[in-house]
């Protein structure tokens, strides 16, 4: 009966660590609206490449800008891109996924083929395509990332909605005379919401990475807007002089993505009734 057991983190640890990291990210963004140690874009050439000190916690960059202030301000872009891009993905993905699940036949095939088509493009490639067509900038980056999110959500929505529709209570609702819209909102959406929430946190993490990558390539946030990706790009030129300038935004991106992924994992465990029943 005794099993060799590895020490495991206590249940729910990933949920709380994830929530703490995401909370810190949100707090950083919120604080940056009212206070940063220095104006994030303020250039101060005499103090360029200052090492971390009491005056500049994380030092200054090649133009003497305060790194801590830029990091705080940069979190805003990350969150903005994440929220809006995931929002776009959810709105279109859920709508198309539900239509596909309810319509069956030709319409379902068409929607799924279209999302396969969108899905087949590497996210970054389609983002580069969009921003190079319509010009770089945060708005276009958001749209590009949102367009990438929609088919992911649509596929998940269709698959989970189909499994709900195969349940007897969906048939029972039809037998009671309810129409497809009522069934979609009353029966399908509440039952698939947990998987959508989990997927949304993961897409959020992907969106943050994508924004950083686009800004790094110069296709996302434009100066003087602070962005972690842009900080990385600028740090690259002076990597041998001041490697820490690349480390700070890199760590910020990594911690945010890690936090969101842990939160997604934790939520999945917490929201999955089967896992809950086993504990």
């Amino acid at each position, binding site marked *: 009966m005794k099993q060799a057991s590895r020490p495991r983190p206590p249940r729910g640890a990933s949920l709380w660590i994830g929530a703490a990291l995401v909370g810190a990210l949100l707090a950083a963004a919120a604080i940056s609206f009212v206070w940063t140690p220095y104006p994030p874009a303020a250039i101060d050439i005499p103090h360029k490449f200052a090492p971390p000190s009491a005056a500049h916690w994380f030092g200054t960059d090649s133009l003497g800008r305060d790194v801590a202030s830029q990091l705080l301000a940069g979190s805003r872009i990350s969150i903005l891109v994440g929220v809006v891009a995931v929002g776009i993905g959810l709105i279109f993905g859920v709508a198309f996924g539900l239509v596909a699940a309810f319509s069956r036949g030709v319409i379902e095939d068409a929607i799924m083929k279209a999302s396969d088509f969108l899905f087949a493009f590497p996210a970054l490639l389609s983002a580069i395509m969009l921003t190079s067509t319509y010009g770089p900038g945060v708005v276009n980056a958001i749209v590009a990332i949102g367009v990438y999110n929609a088919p992911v959500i649509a596929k998940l929505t269709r698959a989970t909605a189909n499994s709900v529709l195969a349940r*007897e209570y969906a048939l*029972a*609702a*039809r*037998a*009671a005379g309810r129409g497809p819209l009522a069934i979609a909102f*009353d029966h399908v959406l509440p039952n698939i919401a947990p998987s959508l929430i989990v997927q949304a946190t993961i897409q959020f993490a992907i969106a943050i990475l994508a924004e950083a990558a686009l800004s790094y390539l110069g296709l996302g946030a434009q100066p003087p807007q602070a962005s972690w990706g842009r900080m990385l790009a600028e740090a690259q030129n002076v990597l041998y002089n001041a490697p820490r300038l690349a480390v700070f935004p890199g760590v910020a991106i990594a911690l945010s993505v890690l936090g969101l992924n842990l939160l997604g994992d934790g939520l999945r465990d917490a929201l999955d009734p089967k896992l809950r029943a086993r504990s």
Partner: protein
Amino acid sequence: MLLEVSDLTIEILTPTGAERVVNGGSFTLDEGESLGIVGESGSGKTMTSLALMGLTPENALVSGSIRFEGQELVGLGEEEMRALRGDRIAMVFQEPMTALNPLHRVGAQVAEPLILHRGMTKAAAGARAVELLEHVRLADPARAARSYPFMLSGGERQRAMIAMAIGCSPRLVIADEPTTALDVTVQARILELIDGLRAESRMALVLVSHDLAVIAGHCDRVVVMYAGAILESGPVEAVLTRPRNPYTRALLEARPRPGARRGDRLKTIPGSPPLHHEAAQGCPFSPRCPLAIEVCGRAPPPEIKFGSERMSRCHRARELDERS
């Protein structure tokens, strides 16, 4: 006549061709009457009951005629059909565990058809739902209405399902294996409840079951289905005591009997039902039939009527009649 089904044929369209799951079924049902549909899994009994509700899957092709209160249901628009469902025709499902949405309170689910078809306000429908739950003799209806499905037992859930079905006083209730998932004692009480509700409101019942004892105890007439075809129909007592079709006979003989001795083997029907009911030439039961003769495998059996009420689809039905 409340319900007249004639020549009902249901074909499931698959990539490999059309598969006929119900083949020319005909039966009628009067106000207040109860009809049992009995058959093995895959005999087409569930598909038949879904067709009455207009709930056959998208890839099913329904032809023939289903007249309900004089209205033709085959080919009726989804909108009109939806107006009937839950109002004039209601359905009780097999699995009370899964037929209620786990995320909504029981009372709200019972109230749903009332809001939909009777235009009641949420509050009025909620109050009526508690009355309905009381009517199906749930011990504490107010508590049951506030509960989520997982908080109720299987029997309680099935009572709630019934309350949901009878809310709008339907003229016809279709119960597809309503007690199969329940304990025998609970089963008996649920069936008594359905009988009682039927007696007071004169609603008609279609009871789908594989259990001959359930059909015998709670139906006026019975339809015996095999591989999509109705092989025998008639008044319950007559059919189950003097079957005029070898399949009905075999089914009756395959029942476990009280008083059987240890070591006695349960009688079974050799072979298994055909998997694909492509338009077989002869009688679908002929490969397994102990009385099959040469013609059975060659020609479809004719409908042989005995009086106005009984029908058997068998080449040798008349001989069976003489023997019994």
